[in-house]
């Protein structure tokens, strides 16, 4: 049996330790997914807790019908989307620079590298933000969270073909938006 499903079934039967283990397996991915979705680091941890809280609250009704991770990312997408809509997060670039990034690691705290990472993070976030919701989610799930097209299809409640189409269209738009930010301006060929 899939380890996540086994842990979730143990949680259902009252084993909170199993749920702790489940969180340890997934919280980093969920925090980063929400962080990339909202571009707000502090909120991403609170929202990730909200995701796990929703799962924990509904543990009694859990049925192992789908892969746990697809259920997890479906809830994470809903929580992120609700947050973005509710807060109407329209931060300026300066405000965004105050949030997130590589924190507390002196090894990589090299000014130039840090500035580059913040800039590129914000550029990518804005490019992603400009995509239709489903294209954005499809790319985030497949590119960053490593979900297969099949798993992303379960999260988005659509066909595998539709996911491929979302990723394809999203990629084409991202190429247009991000090619000016490629090292060297993206003006050289193969």
């Amino acid at each position: 049996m899939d380890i996540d499903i086994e842990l979730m079934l143990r949680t259902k039967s009252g084993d909170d330790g199993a749920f702790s283990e489940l969180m340890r397996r997934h919280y980093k991915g969920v925090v980063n997914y929400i962080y990339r979705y909202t571009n707000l680091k502090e909120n991403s941890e609170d929202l990730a807790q909200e995701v796990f809280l929703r799962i924990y609250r509904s543990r009694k009704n859990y049925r192992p019908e789908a892969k746990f991770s697809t259920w997890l990312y479906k809830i994470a997408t809903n929580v992120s989307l609700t947050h973005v809509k509710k807060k109407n997060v329209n931060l300026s670039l300066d405000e965004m620079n105050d949030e997130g990034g590589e924190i507390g690691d002196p090894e990589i705290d090299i000014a130039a590298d840090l500035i580059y990472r913040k800039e590129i993070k914000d550029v990518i976030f804005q490019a992603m933000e400009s995509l239709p919701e489903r294209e954005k989610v499809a790319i985030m799930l497949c590119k960053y969270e490593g979900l297969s097209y099949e798993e992303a299809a379960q999260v988005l409640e659509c066909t595998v073909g539709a996911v491929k189409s979302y990723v394809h269209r999203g990629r084409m738009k991202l190429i247009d938006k991000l090619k000016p930010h490629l090292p060297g301006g993206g003006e050289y060929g193969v």
Partner: protein
Amino acid sequence: MECSDCKELIVSWSSGDLPPSGKESIEAHIGECPECRLYMSQSDRVWNLLGEWREVEPRSDFVSCFWDRVSKEERESGWSVFSYVRKLRLNWAMAGALASVLIVGIFTFALFKPDSGFETYADNDARDEQILLELDDATTRETTDALSIYGPWENTVEIMKINGYGDMN
């Protein structure tokens, strides 16, 4: 092939969704078209650029913070019982009447309840006190008797009187 069609194929190819025949079409086109050749390079490099948005390291106490939050919510849900009562919107007269009924009930219960607890306590208490007094008297008497072997004590009679033995002599 049009450049727009070629670009579509390039992205499909980058995603791994292109049959070998499609790849041959791309190669034939980009051999003659610098624009699509550039696009092919950009497609992969943009995909790699997305990877530059590095992960953040969440706080290590995420799991314990989660359980703190669960405990907090459970405590608050305890308070929600009171909130529920408040939501019943009982007026003050009704609340007063309910309180009166409760108080009368408690007194009635106390009146009719067979109550031997105090008597039992008092009896036991008196008995214990008597035992302690007797023990104390016996000890004093023994001490006085023991001391008398060293000769007549001036205050022996006084001591015995104090302890109620004066009449015995």
